[in-house]
């Protein structure tokens, strides 16, 4: 591999994912924006919801690692050195963060308004 610049990386991902690349990127952007929106709207992070999102996130991380092993016809026994473990941690972290953002945003968007206000108020009261 000669120059591993960003343009190359995008080209490679385009070949790998085909037409699905940009919808996936768009979905990530939408999830991130929705997350930011929910946080701004509620003027802060709602702890209970975050906890639930984080629990889902752990599942998301585990799922990401499992999917990676399945699509690459390999298993944990194939991890051969520190870089392999780092990669597993990275894949887990990506799955975790992605799931937390998406699920927190989804729960926030679909939470009923009074519950929303109540939760945020309780938080602030607790925090104070």
């Amino acid at each position: 591999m000669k120059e591993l610049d960003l343009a190359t990386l995008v080209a490679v991902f385009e070949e790998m994912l085909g037409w699905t690349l940009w919808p996936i990127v768009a979905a990530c952007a939408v999830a991130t924006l929705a997350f930011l929106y929910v946080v701004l709207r509620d003027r802060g992070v709602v702890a209970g919801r975050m906890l639930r999102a984080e629990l889902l996130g752990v599942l998301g991380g585990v799922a990401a690692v499992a999917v990676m092993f399945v699509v690459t016809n390999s298993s944990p026994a194939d991890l051969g050195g520190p870089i392999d473990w780092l990669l597993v941690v990275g894949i887990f972290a990506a799955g975790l963060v992605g799931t937390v953002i998406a699920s927190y945003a989804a729960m926030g968007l679909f939470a009923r308004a009074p519950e929303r206000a109540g939760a945020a108020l309780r938080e602030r009261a607790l925090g104070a």
Partner: protein
Amino acid sequence: MRTMAGGLGRRGLMAGAAAIAALGASGAAAEHPVRTRAKIVIVGAGAAGLAAASRLAQRLDGAEITLLDRRREHLYQPGFTLVAAGLKAPGYTVSATRDYVPRGATLIEEAAAEIDPVGRSVTTESGRRVPYDFLIVATGLALDYAAIEGMDVNRIGRDGLGSVYAGPEQAAATWRAMSDFADRGGTALFLRPATEMKCAGAPLKYAFITDDVLRRRGNRGRAELVYNAHNRALFSVPIVAEKVRMLYQERGIRVNHDHVLRAIDPGRRIATFRTPGGDVEQRYDFINVVPPMRAPQVVRNSPLPWQSGPFAADGWAEVDRHTLRHVRFPEVFCVGDVAGVPKGKTAASVKWQVPVAVDHLIATIQGRQSSERYNGYTSCPLITRIGRAMLVEFDYNDNLVPSFPGVIAPLEELWITWIMKEVGLKPTYLAMLRGRA
């Protein structure tokens, strides 16, 4: 994939936008295209021919670029090994050549029958004469199965006869034969030809993969694996050869040296090897035949091959090893497997060779000198079992030239290297065909 993209998040998106900007701003495409009316003919629309056409189309404006190739399917050959490991269907390696022909280039679906570098023209099999100002020869190489007495390509997949190199369907047939063998056990023979060859690691990989499949089925104890090396070494780069020797010892793969396959009797399952002490017959239950490889006939019959030295006999094109420019016909470049240079003959080498040759060609059009040089970069991720591989990257001087020094260790059996081979290599290869990697 979702989670992978999930991790990209907002920063990923910004990076993506930056990348799109970069594509326009810093890529070769956005340098002012060079205006020219040059006629450029490319013989062979495989890895090197398509990559060269894409790069030329990006950097030139008004050139007449013509590709010649009869084969309509494009073959992603590094995938043959995965097909022969039972991990991918043959279709994984097959796509359409047309899909990679860049705008501004023309594909003539005919083979070149004659190359005349004195008269500067190529004649196709139907007798059409195509004149050129610049010629890129990218014909790949020819598999010379006929040089092995008794070899019959149509029998691949039967009676324990395998040959990963022969094509996608044959790679799948090889998997069936190997899988059969892995159920029963017996003796398996692996080998390589005494000629130059593409991806010299591929025959070694297949012995590792067979060993792994046997172990997974609990039948390793019932099988003997033998690797017949054509000379004293397992690989042309000493440090790689030593590593493979150690691993083969560990896996119990027996090695014979100075054994070159001369004849095969597929019915009786006997292979005959030429050795310094005379012919030796070996019985087998499974064999992976790797045939001698030579320059294609159209090149061998032309004035392009080396006239003397180690590359003359098999007709490899006589090019400068650092520029890929023909030493006697300066308007001719030979890239990819057909080039008579000491290393190369991998798709990864093509990725490094093509931009160099293209820059020298364009420099000639512009009347400037190019300082681009190809250093012999060759890469052959060596699968050591399903799930692990070693990065093997080297140059003309037998030096290791790791792409990720300090991060991904060369010559170490790693999962990340396996992922690069199984997931990353094909999209990178396809991006190369489009001149984007």
